[in-house]
């Protein structure tokens, strides 16, 4: 045995001396290997870190480890990263309790959270609507004899102020565009609203005037932007328990057994907040977090320009008192004699790098307290209208309990676009057969003398008769206004229901579209998926279970894509390295034919030569591969300490926060060295064969 080691030594000696003898070639080959192994170490470390952080993002926010849904579904489930508003068409699973039982029977399953994904367009928080509603309330109480005269007068002033703002705005539009830009009807309506006629009899009988204002004037205020809300119906408690990154920011969680709505803080900021304030926030972020300047950034300049021109949004909120207060504050701040508050606001929002910080503070300290910064406040009722699966408009009025974030993902659009709703309300909006509605259907059936109503027909039966249902029958193409009018009848009843608690057992009994599964051991996900599908089949619930990567849609595939790109580049680099090392060794073999022949003649077996070339290739591989890995580890260390800033929203989500701090795992280095060694070994095969074919006669260089 001892001889082996010594033989190896001499092989190594010859190999190393040969390498040294052709230094330049060795350096070129080594350089390529060094770069390759560096790329592998840095690349895999980065991708692994992104993978880990992204899986934290995805698993910790909505997806869980595994998503389960009915295998009868038409579409595939994606819970996030949906770039459009369309929710996937899923077939509901009827009995969540049975589903939960089945899933919890699978060994690795820790928790099951019921879910349903849908979206709705909500027209909430039109300033004029809000003001008119307040006025209506005050008028009613005043007529009822309550002492609300002062508030009533102030609100009345506010409405008249709004009409003035709207009229001026319409005039502007006509001036800027043309006479026909505003319809005659709207102009007439505005004129009527401003007329003394309308207001003369208001104190006595406000309702006709209010109705006119609500129907004709409120729609003119285009700040009634629609809110596109994607929401997740779930069991709030189970959700909070399983997704512990979820934190309430404002308000409270939806109390158990209560219907309610939680805004995602991101949606709340982006969609519900006063646009002017949102733009100021964005400018502030741009300057303080992304070190931009107003002077150089076109983006910031655009936001400033929008703030300067779009002051109407604020003007609509100002009643007489506030108008005066704003005038005084702005005149003081700007040192201006201008009395037109709209112009003062424009002037105030025309900021530059020098005064932005001060004005930003001034806005939030002095102006914002007098404004409704959010169109929907915590505690407000939110009416959500949604098309049910069978095409009817269903609406539910829900209390907004608060806002929430997923910790670490506060600024991520992808994680932030889902709002939360109690499962029971979700089922109603989705058109599921809740126990309440089942009862109603039963009544209808009794009345109509019908025997059976299938799930698909239940709604049609329930809402197909306007005089019976709480909601009017409106097809997809139905006129929105008509819908509103007809649903007025059911309004009171719905509000009552909104404040009605429900039996928490209902959460269990009804249907769900999908469910998130949290597992005990995340390494066994693929196994658990098989188990779940098998258990579903056995329990008569045909299930499809998918990993969080798949459930998170495009975003989830992102890391797979990066990994593919990385592996392909690594493949190319090492393919090149392979060819070059191979070539170098072939050259070396050809140059050394006499020497190899001599070695063969004096008794070296073929494998000795093979070993020699292998050692040569491996030596270069190990030396430069290790150097590359070491260098790569250093780079990862430096990047890890500094962190890679997430420059955009997608990166923010992938990094699971504002910075990615990649870390090195032994696997990164091991993989790199393994690849290098394999490439070295493979590249010495052909020259090895060549060397083995060298005849010992080569040593005899006689003239024979």
């Amino acid at each position: 045995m001892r001889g082996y080691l010594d033989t190896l030594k001499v092989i190594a000696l010859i190999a190393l001396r040969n390498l040294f003898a052709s230094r330049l070639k060795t350096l070129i080959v080594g350089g390529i290997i060094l770069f390759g192994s560096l790329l592998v170490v840095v690349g895999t470390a980065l991708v692994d870190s992104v993978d880990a952080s992204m899986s934290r993002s995805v698993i910790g926010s909505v997806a869980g480890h595994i998503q389960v849904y009915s295998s009868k579904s038409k579409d595939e489930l994606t819970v996030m990263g949906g770039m459009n508003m369309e929710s996937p068409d899923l077939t509901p699973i009827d009995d969540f309790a049975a589903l939960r039982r089945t899933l919890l029977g699978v060994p690795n399953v820790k928790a099951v959270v019921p879910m349903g994904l849908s979206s709705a367009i909500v027209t909430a928080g039109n300033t004029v609507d809000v003001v008119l509603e307040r006025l209506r309330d005050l008028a009613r109480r005043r007529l009822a004899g309550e002492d609300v005269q002062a508030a009533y007068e102030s609100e009345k002033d506010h409405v008249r102020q709004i009409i003035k703002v709207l009229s001026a705005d319409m005039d502007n539009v006509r001036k800027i565009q043309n006479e026909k830009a505003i319809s005659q009807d709207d102009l007439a309506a505005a004129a009527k609203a401003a007329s003394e006629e309308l207001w003369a009899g208001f104190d006595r009988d406000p309702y006709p005037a209010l109705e006119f204002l609500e129907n004709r004037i409120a729609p003119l205020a285009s700040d009634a932007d629609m809110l596109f809300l994607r929401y997740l119906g779930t069991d709030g408690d189970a959700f909070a328990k399983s997704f512990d990154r979820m934190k309430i920011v404002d308000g409270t969680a939806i109390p158990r057994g209560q219907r309610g709505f939680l805004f995602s803080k991101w949606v709340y900021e982006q969609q519900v907040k006063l646009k002017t304030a949102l733009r100021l926030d964005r400018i502030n972020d741009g300057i303080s977090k992304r070190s931009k300047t107003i002077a150089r950034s076109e983006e910031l300049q655009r936001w400033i320009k929008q703030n300067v021109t779009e002051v109407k949004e604020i003007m609509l909120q100002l009643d007489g008192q506030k108008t005066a207060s704003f005038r005084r504050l702005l005149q003081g701040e700007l040192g201006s004699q201008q009395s037109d508050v709209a112009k003062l606001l424009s002037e105030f929002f025309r900021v530059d790098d020098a005064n932005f910080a001060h004005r930003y503070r001034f806005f939030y300290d002095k102006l914002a307290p007098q404004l409704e910064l959010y169109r929907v406040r915590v505690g407000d009722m939110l009416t959500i209208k949604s098309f049910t699966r069978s095409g009817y408009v269903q609406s539910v009025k829900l209390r907004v309990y608060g806002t929430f974030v997923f910790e670490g993902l506060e600024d991520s659009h992808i994680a932030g676009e889902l709002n939360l709703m109690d499962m029971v309300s979700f089922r109603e909006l989705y058109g599921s057969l809740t126990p309440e509605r089942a009862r109603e259907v039963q009544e209808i059936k009794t009345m109509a003398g019908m025997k059976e109503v299938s799930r698909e027909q239940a709604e049609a039966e329930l809402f197909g008769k306007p005089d019976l249902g709480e909601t009017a029958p409106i097809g997809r193409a139905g006129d929105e206004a008509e819908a509103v009018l007809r649903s007025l009848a059911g309004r009171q009843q719905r509000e009552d229901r909104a404040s009605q608690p429900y039996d928490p057992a209902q959460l269990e009994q009804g249907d769900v579209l999908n469910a998130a599964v949290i597992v005990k051991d995340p390494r066994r996900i693929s196994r658990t998926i098989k188990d779940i599908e098998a258990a579903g089949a056995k329990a008569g619930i045909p299930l499809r279970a998918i990993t969080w990567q798949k459930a998170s849609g495009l975003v989830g595939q992102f890391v797979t894509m990066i990994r593919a790109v990385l592996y392909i580049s690594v493949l190319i680099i090492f393919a090149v390295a392979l060819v070059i090392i191979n070539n170098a060794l072939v050259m070396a073999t050809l140059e050394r034919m006499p020497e190899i022949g001599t070695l063969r003649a004096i008794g070296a077996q073929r494998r000795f030569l093979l070993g020699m070339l292998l050692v040569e290739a491996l030596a270069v591989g190990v030396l430069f591969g290790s150097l590359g890995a070491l260098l790569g580890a250093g780079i990862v260390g430096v990047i890890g300490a500094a962190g890679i800033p997430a420059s955009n929203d997608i990166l923010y989500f992938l990094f699971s926060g504002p910075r990615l701090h990649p870390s090195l795992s032994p696997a990164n280095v091991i993989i790199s060295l393994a690849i290098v060694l394999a490439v070295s070994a493979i590249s010495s095969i052909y020259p090895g064969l060549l060397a083995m074919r060298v005849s010992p006669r080569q040593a005899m260089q006689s003239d024979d």
Partner: protein
Amino acid sequence: MNHIVSVSNVSKNYNLGQVVVPALRGVSLDVAEGEFLAIAGPSGSGKTTLLNLVGCVDTPSAGTVTVDGKQTGQLSERDLTRLRLHTIGFIFQSFNLVSVLSVLQNVELPLLLQRALSARERRERVLALLDRVGIREYSKHRPSELSGGQRQRVAIARALVTRPKLVLADEPTANLDSVTGTNILNLMKELNQSEKTTFIFSTHDARVWAYASAVVRLADGQVQDRVSAEEAVRAGGLPTGRPV
């Protein structure tokens, strides 16, 4: 007397494309242990081919070559290599030392391939041998730092280090000046006598014949005759009469 090498009716053809070139034609030759045999002949007479066959780096097209009791034609490539390693030592015309190894390492190489001795034993034997061939002081040098004669001494040491029964030398003096050549021949002869190692060397240098115990003269791939050194020298040249 035992025959260390026995060549019997051997032919060797080389295929050069379509043409078959006969290098040896019906050669028979017995070499006794301890001989110091010269194979003489002009270029193309088949000297090197014969040495290749005897040295087990090639096998005959017809006939048999027996080395140390083994018929080479029946041995596998591996066994031939093993036979070379343990039984035969080679001395080449252009020395064929491994340029990246030191003198000591070059000489040690066959022992390493044999894997029979410990490091200390190897070292002792190598140094003793270097002492014997007179280049011990150069043991740490690279071949490129030595003169031709010194290099051939290294080659001789390498050929002898395994204590082979047979040493083959292919024109060992061809690349050396006459004084050095004579010294090398003296050394080889000395080792032949002291170690009882059989030497077979090819040469067309008439001065070398004087050292041989016998001279086998080849011409056109056939054995012309086998004469004593004296006869060969007296004949004054090669069988073809061509002066050297």
